[in-house]
């Protein structure tokens, strides 16, 4: 399943300078793609536009060459996308399994199936033994892996990660990156925003965001 941005421009305010400027790019399916760029270049905004969390000021998002319409956004977001953020977003008082099930439950999957898929995903990221612990009792690296497990459990077509290793040490970064890249199901496109060249080097493709434009190997698309 392909994802394309076509002539996307985004401003936070009408009079402000665009963060994304007439950007067009096709993200190849089933690949891992690292988006790099300096701080403030708009990487997180780009990811929010891709993941249908933010509607661009101008331009379109296309999935399988079809323009995403406003009324489809909530449904597509649920069915196709999963997120891993730098700031860990979990329900701290709930169990690790509950958190990992959440995306599936939001898709209307039955409790039993959701629990089973969540357990599998937790095993994939090495958290199988911590399934019944509360999320707030996990370390930073474990929490990030929980977020990845939650994302993987839903078997998304697009797995979007925003600086997932930003606050982790090298050893944990490697485990998280491995969980993201190798743990993702077949057919899932991984788009990871990162400052870390080590993480970017493990992806199939690296694109740079600068001045509101995306470039591969220094070439503007």
């Amino acid at each position, binding site marked *: 399943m392909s994802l394309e941005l076509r002539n996307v421009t985004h401003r936070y305010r009408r009079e402000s300078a665009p963060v994304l400027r007439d950007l067009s790019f096709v993200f190849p399916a089933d690949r891992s793609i690292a988006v790099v760029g300096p701080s403030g270049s708009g990487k*997180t*905004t780009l990811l*929010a536009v891709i993941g249908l*969390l*933010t509607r661009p000021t101008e331009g379109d998002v296309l999935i399988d060459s079809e323009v995403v319409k406003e009324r489809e956004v*909530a*449904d597509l*977001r*649920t*069915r196709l996308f*999963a*997120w891993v*953020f730098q*700031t860990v*977003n*979990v*329900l701290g*008082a*709930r169990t690790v399994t*509950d958190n990992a099930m*959440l*995306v599936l*439950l*939001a*898709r*209307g999957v*039955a*409790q039993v199936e959701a629990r089973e898929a969540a357990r599998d995903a937790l095993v994939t990221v090495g958290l199988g033994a911590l399934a019944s612990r*509360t999320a707030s009792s996990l370390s930073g690296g474990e929490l990030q892996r929980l977020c990845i497990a939650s994302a993987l459990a*839903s078997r998304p077509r697009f797995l979007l990660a925003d600086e997932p290793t930003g606050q982790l040490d090298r050893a944990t970064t490697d485990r998280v990156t491995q969980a993201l890249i190798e743990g993702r199901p077949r057919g899932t496109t991984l788009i990871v925003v990162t400052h870390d060249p080590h993480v970017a080097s493990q992806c199939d493709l690296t694109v740079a965001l600068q001045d509101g434009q995306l470039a591969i190997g220094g070439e503007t698309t």
Partner: protein
Amino acid sequence: MSWRTTALMREAWLNVTSNRWRTAGAVLALGAILGSLAALELRDANELRNFQANFVRSGGYVALGLPPAGGSADAARCEAMNGQPGVVAAGSVIRPTPTTFETAPGILYQRAAVTWGVLRVWDPANRAAANDSRQIVIGRVMAGETGLRPGSFVTPRGEGPILVTAIVDTTRRNPTAARWALDPVPPTGSVDECWVEFVPGAFEAGLASLPAQLTTGDKEAVARPYIRRDEFTRDPAAEFVARPQRNGWPLAGSLMAGLFALMAWFRRSELGLYLAIGTPRSLLMAMLAVEALLVVALATVLAVAYAVAIDEALHHTPRWSGTWIVVRTVGSAALLTLTAAPLLAVLVVRGSIANLLKDR
């Protein structure tokens, strides 16, 4: 596809039960608001109820019918009011005259001919009844002073012995008669006083129609309340309607809904997560409504228990005497909260989901 209903309900339940401190804090805060409102309602309801009860016990709905100057009022007509709609009891005092008794020489007691109806007005708890003319009923104070009791005989000066059939306690309704010896007589001739007790709602109309009911000649009888109304300027019904906390429930409800909105503000990241995984705002609102329902239900139970305990400790009033008022007021506040809280919470998390996820 989106959340199944059971899964969403379970999610709300788990959010409430797994965040014990947050839930406990919310329940306590809401319980304090609702409890204060409930305690105020219970205090006023019981105070008014007690006032009303005392008012009735003291003869607040008793009227006196009196013959006009130079005229007469008919005892039979007075007695005939028994059984009329709105009349609790009616009876006549016919001839009060001072007398002495051989068993208590030198002490002057009042002796009055009365109908049985007046004894029911003066002593509502009295069940004594007899038709034998050779009998007498003694007021409680007189009985205490003379040592008389039912079954004793008294001998009024110049008469033979008479059986004392009952002791009546007239101290609440007619304290003077507590030192009287009362001769029950049939209702004939003209009366000195016609005593009529009405049910509360029938008093005003009964008082207005009483003169016409008693009048036999050209001159109309007069009627007045037994208790002067200006001694009881309070109007319990009007006071109840005007009580300030009657309008307290919108304030309490708004305050509690505001608390939920504040809690949602501190849960922006968590609620943003639900939105990010594709939960529609309508379903998020439904989940928050279930959470609010659980918290408000717990707070309501706590509030009513608190209010009843406080009321009982301070006023020793019957445990559930004002419950319906408390339930109505507290229930109104709770319903307002349940309506407004999810709406406000969803308003708090409007805007960019990406920004919500970054919030802490």
